[in-house]
């Protein structure tokens, strides 16, 4: 584990990293008990590009904000050196029963808690090694780094976006993002951020083919309206139109039941200083009707990203 280093830390990349457990199920890693015939390849290929990028960046840590660790009082941060066990998804247990093991960057985690408190936010370190890590955290981390050889920090999704109105809830996530960025800078880490969120989130009420969950002939967006919303959001992010994105976000969340309401994307974009360069879209695909985009923000390469926003690809 890292020892303390002061100053000059930086966020080297940010990813929109959706977490349908179907993606891990389709990958057939040894850690996941259920086995599949594959499926959802376009999204999984998109993640392959991210893995390559992360290897090149050589980060010290990956931080993930997951809506499936929902907390009522403040922001909780994993802060125990090692977390391991079996995580069974309570919603999709037939697809996700994953034996995880992850090293946690405790120094950074504690620094985030301190920065949050300094900013007037409620925050708490999660120091119980028996804690079951949620599937949102695990899926995003596994898809970004299946080698699990980079320390992590998990951040809970405080319930404020659902408890209060959009403005208060997202403001809370914005402050969390700023606190996270400060902690990264102070501890000298090279950090990758992951917003573990789906875009449009209405999905099928029943499994289309229970005998073969990976039956791709059944896979499609839940509604045309959802698709059009997803495309609009993706295009805004690809074009770096960050203000416009935040302007339409509440309406998107209402009309497409978007999971980004939970705050992960706001947290990440605010931590990255509201990037006005275009994000790279690695792939878009549906999972039981939900819309999922795998996207990348690369601060060091913003000019290239800008050209990409006008249609080019890296």
């Amino acid at each position, binding site marked *: 584990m890292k020892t303390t280093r002061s100053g000059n830390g930086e966020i080297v990349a940010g990813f929109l990293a959706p977490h349908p457990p179907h993606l891990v199920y389709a990958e057939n890693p040894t850690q996941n008990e259920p086995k599949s015939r594959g499926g959802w390849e376009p999204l999984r290929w998109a993640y392959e590009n991210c893995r390559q990028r992360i290897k090149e960046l050589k980060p010290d840590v990956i931080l993930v904000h997951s809506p499936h*660790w*929902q*907390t*009522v*009082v*403040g922001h*909780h941060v994993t802060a125990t050196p090692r977390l391991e*066990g*079996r*995580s*069974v998804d*309570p*919603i*999709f*247990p*037939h697809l996700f*029963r994953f034996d995880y093991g992850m090293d946690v960057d405790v120094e950074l985690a504690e620094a985030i808690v301190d920065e949050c408190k300094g900013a007037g936010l*409620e925050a*708490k370190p*999660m*120091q*119980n090694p*028996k*804690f*079951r890590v*949620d599937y949102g955290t695990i899926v995003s981390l596994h898809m970004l780094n299946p080698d699990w050889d980079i320390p992590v920090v998990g951040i*809970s999704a405080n*319930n*404020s976006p659902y*408890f209060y109105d959009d403005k208060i809830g997202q403001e809370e996530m914005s402050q969390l993002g700023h606190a996270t960025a400060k902690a990264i800078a102070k501890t000298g880490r090279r950090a990758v951020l992951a917003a573990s969120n789906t875009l449009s989130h209405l*999905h*099928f*009420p*029943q*499994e289309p083919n*229970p005998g073969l969950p990976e039956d791709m002939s059944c896979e499609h967006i839940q509604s045309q309206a959802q698709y059009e919303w997803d495309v609009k959001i993706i295009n805004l992010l690809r074009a770096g139109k960050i203000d416009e994105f935040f302007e339409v976000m509440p309406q998107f969340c209402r009309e497409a039941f978007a999971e980004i309401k939970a705050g992960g994307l706001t947290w990440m974009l605010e931590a990255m200083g509201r990037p006005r360069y275009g994000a790279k879209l690695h792939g878009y695909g549906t999972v*039981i009707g939900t819309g999922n985009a795998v996207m990348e923000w690369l601060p060091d390469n913003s000019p290239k990203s800008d050209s990409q926003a006008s249609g080019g690809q890296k």
Partner: protein
Amino acid sequence: MTVVARALVSTAPQLLKPELNPAYGGLVNGLQAVEVDFKKLGVERIVYWSTQWISVLGQMFQAGSDLTGTHVDENWHESCELPFHFRVDQKLAAELCAGAAKAGFPGQCIDYRDFPVDTATIIADRFLNPDKIPVTMVACNVYCDNEKTKSLASELFKILEARKEKIAIVAVSLLSTSYHTSTIDLREDAIRGDEENAFVANFVRAVSSADWITLSKTIAHDGAKIRTDMGLKALSWLEGTMPAGRFSQPWNVLVTGPLYGASGIVAQL
């Protein structure tokens, strides 16, 4: 009749420290009174339905052959580590699952090691079921509205009534979910908000006097404002399990009280 008892209960990790707040002690006493009643009635099975176990792809029924473990609460991980062991009646779960499917609510039986049973159900079982009588659990389906939830409950009630055992149906749900959003001294915990307090009082008055019209109006008028737990779907669930498919007799509300600002209740129907 094989369904011999019905209860609406609210639980949370705070109830593990009843000495901290008289209101917690009151809720615990209420739960213990329900447990005593279950014993008197000779309850042989408990069917739990909890707002904290949600399903989205059809209906889920707990059929765990080895439902044992230690659950650490997602919020109060520093103080709430719950060893649990459930004896699950797998046949009952399978019957309910099959019956639900036949009635248009397809789903699955869950039998997976280390399945994360929710905090509220574990704590409810700890108080209501010290002798570890067999249970099963039914998930709260997000895509079933109140009407559908009631309809599902009615179908499952027919199956339960055809069983030989004496069965208790327990809905685990809060009333309001207006939690305190900052750290509080648990000794000072109280139901948060004037509207929430008024709602709880009106709710108790209505169910205690079998005034179902007022209950319905109270929920329709004030429900959204006070952040009811899953739209108080627990009531639809319980109503569906009544012989006539609707509430008729007054409830015996044993206690209401705060659970970190949210409002809890223990009531027998």
